[in-house]
């Protein structure tokens, strides 16, 4: 029997009948103002709950030394402390925790790498469940090219284990501390996603602890409805404790960079490459509006040679030297833009060598893209505040959307980077994509763009950052896009983007699956 089957038989929720709506624009409990921290859970029955966990030897820690580590997430703009912390050890332990939490109505916030930016992995009271305690690789099967792993593991730690077998994961976020479980719950985009899809599409099967504490194995064949809701489900329908993932033979990357002075042209070329399966990896990183980098990479010399023969001449970008000469001419004619030229030069001096560090390259090949890009991201874009609003659209809407988002960035920040990448969609996974970052009108590919301000050590007011995010997200409402980061402090956009009918249906499912609404409260519902 499917774990969620009863929920699917529940009558559709008529909009407006639910009383206070947890997904309304002013949904953050107790706070009328949009997009801010939710109210802290007041701690009713905490002592009895803690005593229950203690009797079950669940490993609850209430010291500030334990709780302080989780006060914020990578975004650094949402702050909250849990009443207690549990470091995940087993599915059984988590099942006991969730059963007790249902009974005492204690919220449980699940955290992997803590790389959310809108407070989704911050606990505003209740229990913080740290999944990184479950970081063991259970088995690797080189014959079937699969791995079974505990879901708290960082993708990078998984890569360390797979490399010993000369294997690699398919795609994962370019960040060293993204966890497998957290990624499967939201999507996971890599520069090979235009070809291989998002990380969530690599999952073959999951072990999930439901909000009511049942331990359930699910896949497209077994408990499929639970699988559909947990994948890309923002942690609303269960805690992923184990995952079976596809893997592949390891190959280093042959990386090429092309430079554009037009964002639109670069996007058109990116989509040309994706449509024609011309490369194994592709993506766009902007430096300035007039300096846009299209990266293209390959797993084999054969693919690289085919690209050079068939597609390279069709790209309108330039190599590094050619582009440098164009920039020289540009600034010679515009001497008043010397500041911009200086910034570009500094970027070339500092960032480019970081992407070609000899210890991470061998014979011109990049040994590990996540190591190279994640280190660069933390070095050049990292900081105490990381605000990364994003937009996800169909291929047709993408260029217009990015240009509008870029204009917003220009209004708010002196320097910023846009990161654009395609996501190959699986037609057989359309149900997985419901109410997720994948926009409903996308066919075959969706495209995502992150708008990343470079704060250069400057601290901005929360209002400034929030206003910037709202301006980006309003574009999404206007054009019918989706977002990667629509939860947490941005959940006021959920109804506006997905519509009442879909949201109410998911809310009914959530209420059925999680009667006390304790799991990852205020992330979506």
């Amino acid at each position, binding site marked *: 029997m499917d774990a969620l089957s009863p929920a699917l038989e529940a009558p559709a929720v008529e909009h407006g009948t639910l009383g206070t709506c947890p997904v309304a624009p002013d949904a953050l409990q107790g706070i009328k103002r949009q997009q801010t921290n939710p109210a802290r859970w007041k701690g009713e029955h905490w002592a009895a709950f803690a005593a229950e966990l203690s009797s079950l030897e669940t490993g609850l820690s209430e*010291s*500030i*030394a*334990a*709780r*302080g*580590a*989780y*006060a*914020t997430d*990578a975004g*650094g703009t949402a702050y909250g*402390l849990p009443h207690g912390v549990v*470091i995940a050890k087993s599915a059984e332990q988590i099942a006991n925790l969730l059963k007790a939490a249902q009974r005492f109505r204690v919220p449980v916030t699940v955290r992997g*790498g*803590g790389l959310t930016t809108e407070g989704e992995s911050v606990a505003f009271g209740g229990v913080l469940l*740290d999944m*990184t*305690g*479950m*970081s063991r690789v259970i088995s690797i099967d080189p014959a079937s090219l699969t791995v079974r792993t505990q879901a*708290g593991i*960082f993708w*990078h*730690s998984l*890569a*360390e*284990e797979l*490399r*010993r*077998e000369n294997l690699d994961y398919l795609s994962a976020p370019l960040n*060293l*501390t993204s966890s497998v479980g957290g990624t499967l719950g939201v999507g996971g985009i890599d520069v090979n996603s235009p070809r291989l899809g998002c990380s969530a599409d690599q999952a073959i099967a999951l072990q999930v602890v439901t909000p009511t504490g049942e331990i359930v194995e699910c896949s497209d064949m077994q408990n499929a409805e639970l699988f559909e809701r947990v994948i890309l489900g923002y942690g609303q329908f269960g805690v992923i404790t184990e995952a079976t993932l596809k893997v592949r033979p390891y190959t280093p990357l042959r990386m090429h960079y092309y430079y554009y002075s037009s964002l639109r042209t670069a996007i058109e070329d990116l989509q040309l490459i994706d449509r024609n399966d011309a490369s194994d990896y592709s993506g766009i990183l902007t430096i300035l509006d007039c300096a846009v980098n299209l990266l293209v990479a390959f797993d084999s010399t054969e693919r690289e040679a085919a690209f050079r023969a068939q597609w390279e001449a069709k790209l309108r970008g330039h190599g590094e030297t050619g582009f440098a000469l164009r920039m020289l001419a540009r600034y010679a004619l515009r001497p008043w833009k010397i500041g911009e030229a200086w910034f570009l030069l500094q970027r070339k001096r500092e960032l480019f060598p970081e992407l070609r560090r*000899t*210890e*991470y390259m061998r014979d011109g090949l990049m*040994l*590990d893209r996540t*190591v190279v890009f994640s*280190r660069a991201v*933390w*070095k050049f874009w*990292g*900081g*105490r505040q990381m605000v990364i609003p994003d937009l996800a659209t169909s291929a047709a809407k993408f260029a217009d959307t990015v240009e509008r988002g870029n204009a917003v960035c220009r209004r708010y920040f002196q320097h910023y980077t846009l990161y654009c990448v395609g996501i190959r969609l699986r037609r057989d996974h359309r149900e997985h994509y419901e109410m997720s970052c994948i926009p409903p009108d996308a066919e075959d590919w969706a495209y995502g763009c992150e708008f990343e301000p470079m704060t250069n050590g400057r601290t901005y007011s929360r209002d400034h950052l929030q206003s910037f995010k709202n301006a980006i997200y309003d574009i999404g409402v206007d054009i019918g896009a989706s977002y990667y980061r629509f939860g947490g402090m941005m959940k006021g956009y959920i109804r506006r983007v997905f519509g009442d009918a879909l949201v109410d249906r998911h809310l009914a499912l959530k209420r059925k699956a999680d009667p006390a609404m304790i799991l990852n409260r205020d992330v979506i519902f």
Partner: protein
Amino acid sequence: MFGSRSGTTVGTAARSDHTDCSGCSLCLLVCPNWRTTHDPRMTPEGRAKALQHGASLEEVAASVQACTLCGACEPVCPEEIDLIGMTLDLRARLADGQVVKVMQEEMKRKAAHSPVPVRAGRLFVPGPAMRIKDDVLKRISLLLGADVCGDDGADIARALKAGVPIPGERLETFLAGLRNAKTLIVEDGFWMRHLRVWLPKARLLSLGEALSSLDKVRRGLRKTDLYVIEPRSYHGDYERLVKHYDRLQLERGCSFNLDLQRIAIPPAGQAEWILKGRKVERIVVERQEDAESFALHGGCPVVHVAELADH
């Protein structure tokens, strides 16, 4: 600068301290304690975050004392926090009065001995396990053309690691034995951060770098060797040494105890992980203590890098 309050530790070019930790978790990924416990409280980030949120020293004591001082966290910290300095400073503040008294008395007794004079030139400072290996010591001395330091400062190293202030007279007798040396070669990279401050004019080399720079040693290295880099020296001078070992790997084809970020995995407690999935015929160690970590896992011979000159 971190450590200046206690007077027992010296910082490197620290740009910030635990208050600057932004919680990126990059230190956690490379921390041997996290790898074995999967408990974030046992990591530099866990300590920094706890202190930022009002934890008392006692509440972070277990984590502070468990740190192996391998230094893997420092090269990956985007805030460039002096994480080893932070840990040593916390240890200094946690040091038990009775332990401080006993250790300082021992150091004062040693200070009564006159320093052993050394010639100007190269001087090798071995660790305790190496000191009892006469044959290896002689070989190293010969290969490097270096005198072996008569006073290895083992009591000082223990005190520094425990956060115990060093009596001035003891430090003076120890440094008097080193001052004439133009090049100091140390087996335990922990010394590097302190000697850089105490003897800024001396050239400092790790034993591993010094030996692996010799042609006759490099020639002895095989493709099927696992070469075990001493983590403290390596992480303390990461930007330079990562290139040194990269060249060695390109030249000899051996493998290293390095992860995908090129951070050295300390062998203590992790020998099994280092060996996992590798086809290794011989293990080459830079630090004598590391030989013991691999001895337990058997299967292939363990030699000191100095012994490669014989092969």
